[in-house]
Each structure stands twice: as C-alpha cells, then as structure tokens.
C-alpha cells in the first residue's frame, strides 16, 4: 500500500510540475463545456429562404406572410426568374427555394388542387430535412386554414378535426443544451483520462524510466494502479467542474442522484483508463499511442449516440457498439441527469461498465510484463 501511495504521489508531482499541463487539466474541460454545449446543437434558426412568387395574389401573399412571420425562416430574396433563384442556391446565398406558380391564387379560389415547388440545398442532409419539415408544417397549416374557410363558408357547423398536441417528456422545451450537456460530460471525462494516462505510460517507455522501474520490487498491479488512480481523481474533478458549469451556466436540470452519477463515472473512467494503458503497452512511442488512441476515441465518440441515435444505426454497427463504453455512460448521464433515473433503471449499463473495467484493467496488468 505504501508503495502505491508513493507512486501516486510521484505522478501528481510530475503532473503539476508541468505548469502547462497542471493548468490545462482544469482549464480544458471548462472551455470545452462553455463552447461545445451551446455550439453543438441541431436547432436550426434562420433558414435562408428564397421565394419565387409568380402568382402575386392575395393567397400567395398570405402564404409568404406566414413564412416571413415564422422565426425559423428568413426570407432573404424574392425574385421572379427561376434561374436567378437557382443561381442563389448555387452560390450558397440561400438554403431553400419555394416556387409559387402563377395561377396559385386562382386555383385556390376555384377550389381546384394546386401545387408548390420547393428545392433545398442538401449538402447538409440533416439541415435540408429539417428545413423541409418546417416548411411542410407551415404549408400544411396554411392548407388547413383554406380548407376550414372553404367548408365553413358552405356549411354552418365547424369541421371536425383531430388535433394532436404533443409534450416532450424530460426536456419539455426540447432544449438542446439539456440534451448535449450530459453527453459532452461523458466525452470530456473520456478524453482527459484516456489521453493523459496512455501518454504517461508511453512516455516512461520512451524516456527509459520504465526500465529503471522494472528492476525495482514494484509489482505489476501496483504500477498499473498508480497510473490509473491519479487520472481517475483528475477525471472526477473535471466531471464535477462540468456538472457545475451545466447547472450554473446552462441551467441544465439535475434530477437524479449526483452520487450515482459519480459512481458510474468512476467505473467508466477505470474502464477507459485500463483501455488506454492496454493500448500503451502495445505502443513504443507517444506517436504510436496517439494514432491508435485517436482511432478508438473517434469511433467511441461518433458511435456513442451523442449526435445520432444508436437505434438508427445499422444492426451490425449496434452490435459493435456493445463494446463502446461511451454508449453506456452517455445513457447513464442522460437518464440520471434529465430523467432522475435510479440505480435500478440503469443497472444494465452499470453492469456493462463494470465488466468492461474488469476486462481492460486485467488485460493491461497482464500485458504490461516486467520480464520481456
């Protein structure tokens, strides 16, 4: 035990002796939270809309009026020639073109079906889909109005309609900050622990200090533990900082138990630190570690479900994701923070992380052989 204590103390002295690293460890998560939480959002504001109104009647103006009134669209251009509108789309000066054909108003007046045409810039598929859906919503609304007017002007009773009202549980306002913050917490903890611990061990290899350590009576598990514990502590402090920023700056609710979240994050950290050390036992240089480490980190993060729901991935990818520890912590963070889930609700994820942690640390200890 005493040996481990001295080993850990040595790690801390080294970390904080490095003036840059000592500060960056705490500054980076703060900056990351402040930038990423509000920046990474799917909310689309101000889609630049170009309207080609070839009709110019009361009806077409009413539709345009509705679009102008929506906060979602910004009607930047109104032109006549189609070619000019296409040109604008080409030059990326508008995102969406809505064409109202001549005779649109007359058709509505006559009660004959009429058509509109919308073209969206789909370079960013997600953007295009979302703006398309919003536009559809506005047009549908307009459509219902006409229908209602037409029918009610003929009969006296109002037309029966089914109106769906929806409510978003756990995040009523669909605030993206609320959605992103717990996820980013997971990534932040991952990045700090993973890179620092892995590089630390490889650095000892590069400098040759590991050689000197290997001739001491220090045991394998002691050495690995002394590499995990300091970064576990740093990771948990960073987590606390991240949660504090979430609550104080972004008003993210914290419904569940903070202790449960810390317990899960501890297990998660042990799992990824073990993995980082395992990778570093295979790498001879810091470059090699960074390269392999990055490969894992990018896959872990992009497949974690922070941006895209795991359920929409292909089945084989979902199977691979069973080995992605970030998936579990992402779910746990969101459930505990936003929904107030208890241990029982997250026990599957918890168990997965425990198994992960046991596997990576055992492998790391075994891989790190003192006798080559």
């Amino acid at each position, binding site marked *: 035990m*005493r*040996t481990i204590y*001295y*080993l850990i103390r*040595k790690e801390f*002295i*080294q970390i904080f*002796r*490095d003036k840059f690293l000592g500060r960056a460890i705490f500054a980076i998560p703060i900056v990351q939270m402040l930038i990423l939480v509000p920046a990474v959002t799917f909310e689309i504001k101000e889609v630049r809309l170009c309207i080609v109104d070839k009709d110019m009647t009361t009806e077409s103006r009413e539709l345009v009026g509705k679009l102008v009134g929506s906060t979602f669209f910004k009607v930047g251009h109104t032109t006549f020639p189609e070619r000019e509108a296409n040109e604008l789309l080409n030059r990326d000066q508008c995102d969406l073109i809505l064409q109202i054909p001549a005779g649109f108003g007359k058709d509505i007046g006559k009660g004959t079906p009429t058509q509109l045409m919308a073209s969206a810039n789909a370079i960013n598929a997600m953007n295009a889909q979302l703006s398309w859906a919003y536009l559809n919503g506005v047009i549908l609304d307009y459509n219902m109005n006409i229908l209602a007017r037409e029918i009610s002007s003929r009969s006296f009773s109002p037309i029966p309609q089914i109106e769906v009202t929806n409510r978003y549980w756990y995040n009523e306002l669909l605030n993206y900050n609320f959605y992103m913050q717990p996820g980013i917490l997971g990534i932040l903890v991952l990045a700090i622990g993973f890179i620092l611990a892995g590089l630390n061990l490889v650095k000892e290899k590069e*400098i*040759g*200090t590991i*050689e*000197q*350590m*290997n*001739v*001491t*009576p*220090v045991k394998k598990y002691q050495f690995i533990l002394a590499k995990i514990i300091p970064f576990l502590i740093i990771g948990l402090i960073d987590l606390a900082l991240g949660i504090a920023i979430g609550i104080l700056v972004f008003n993210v609710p914290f419904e569940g138990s903070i202790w449960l979240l810390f317990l899960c994050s501890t297990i998660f950290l042990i799992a990824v630190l073990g993995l980082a050390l395992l990778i570093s036992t295979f790498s001879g240089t810091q470059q090699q570690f960074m390269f392999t480490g990055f490969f894992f980190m990018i896959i872990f993060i992009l497949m974690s479900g922070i941006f895209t729901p795991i359920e929409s991935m292909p089945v084989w990818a979902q199977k691979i994701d069973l080995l992605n520890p970030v998936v579990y912590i992402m779910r746990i963070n969101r459930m505990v923070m936003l929904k107030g889930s208890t241990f029982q609700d997250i026990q599957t994820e918890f168990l997965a992380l425990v198994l992960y942690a046991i596997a990576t640390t055992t492998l790391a200890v075994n891989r790190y052989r*003192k*006798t*080559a």
Partner: protein
Amino acid sequence: MTANSIISVSHLSKSFGEVNALKDISFDVGEGEVFGFIGPDGAGKTTLFRIITTLLLPDEGEVTILGLDCVKGFRELRKNIGYMPGRFSLYMDLTVEENLNFYATVFGTTVRENYDLIADIYAHIEPFRKRPAGKLSGGMKQKLALSCALIHKPALLVLDEPTTGVDAVSRAEFWEMLKKLKKYHITILVSTPYMDEAMRCDKVALIQEGKILSVDQPERITDGFSRRLFSVRSSEKYKLIRALREFPLTDTAYPFGDSVHVTFRDDHYDDTLYRYLTAAGFTDVSIGETRAGIEDRFLELMTPPLQGSNRTL
C-alpha cells in the same frame, strides 16, 4: 562455479530473431569483485546485463545470481540488484532529491537508512538537490543515477556503460567512487567500451559478437599477449600507419595513442623496417619494443591468426 560466486552464468544464449546476441556464454563473478566487460558496441554487453537484471529471459543456459535463479527468483532478486542503464533514465522532471527519495521508497527503504553508502557520491550533487534531474550536467546525472542505484544497498550493482559520454575528469572520479564501494562488499558488474578502464577492474571479460574471448585479471590478460610488440612513432602518424601496413613483414599495425603498435611475421625484427621507412621519406621515426596493453591483447583476440604464424590464443 566457485564457492563464493555471486554470479554464475553457464552456457547462456540469447537471440533476437536472426541475431544471436549471446552465444554460449559462461563465467563466474566472485563476491566483492569489480568485474568489467570490455567490448565494442553491439558485442552483447547490454543484452547480458538485461538478463542479469531480470529484464530479459535467457533462451538457453543457466544464470544464478546471489544463489537465486534469474528466472524463477526474479522477485527476490530485484530487491538486491542496483541497475544503472546505459541511457540516463531517472525522472527528468523530478528534482535530485525527489528522485532519490522516490527510488528509496519503492525499494521500501529511506535515504537516511543507507545514506553513508552514497554520502561520498551524493555530496557532489547535494548543492543542486532542488534542481530537476533533466537540468543536471552529464557528470552530475551519472552521480545521481549511481546514488539512486545504490540507495537500497544492493548486493550487486550492474552498471551499463556508466562512463560513456562523460568527460575524462568525471570518468576518473567515477572509478574512484566505485573503488570506495569495495569496503561495503558490493559486487559490481560494469561494461565499458574504453580499454583504459579495464585496468581498474579486478577481473575483465573481453566480449565480442556475443562471445567471451577471455576472462582474467587485467594484468594477466595482457600477459596472454605472446608476441613481440613494437611501438613506432613519427609526426606523420596517418602516413606511418599506411606505410607500416604496406611493409611486407608487418603482421598487424594499429594506432595506439600517438604511436603505432606493430607486430611482425614470426616476430622477426631487424633494421629492415628502419631502412624501409627512411627510404619512404620519414625523417623522425623512432622504433622501440614495448609492453602490450589490454587493447593490444583484445585486438589480437579479435583477429583470426594468419596462416603460418606462431601465435597462440
């Protein structure tokens, strides 16, 4: 195996893929001896030391250190071996003091407990105890590394090329320090590429291409040189070597300090050489018979004997 041998190596072999780093090596080191390994780079010195310090497993053969097998007894052995690798490998970002304390604690001891052992050495670097190890000069780094290797009072001290890249004064100082350690009965295994350091060892093993050519006391190793050796001097040394090597009666000619050491076929020497050299334009040639140094013996061992010569190995 002698009764009080600290290290006993028999028929040790180790290869890395195609490269046979050590080929069937056997030797014994007695208690309290300063045992030197002399050989060029790539001779297998570091591989041998890494096996003795339990960092590498041997392929074949037996290595017994302090009565323990180097494979099975590695855990116990590590408590009793002090190792100073060829490359400085202490924590550069820790101070002198922190490094020393750290190594003392991982060996489960304290600096105070064994301070008298390192006092002489540490005194040189104590004024800089708050300085990060990475900012020390080469000689001071070496003293710190030696202090750290000694802090747990090991029975065996293994020093891999401790004086490589260190200035001449520090080298001499370093050997003085090793000499002082004798009174603590610490057995020292040291490797060096410098021939002159061999004379400071109790016993020397000449090693080349994974084979031990000779093991003996340094004086006796030079005694093994059976030829008549001549030292030839001239101010134009480079030209002189070329001329000597072209001389038909020359067997070997190697530069040695400011002279050239020469042996002749069948050890036959007369004034033919002097006449040959003056004819070749040398005006300040002096020739004299000399005693062989360890380097001469090493070079003799390294080169296969010529046909028809009467040399014995």
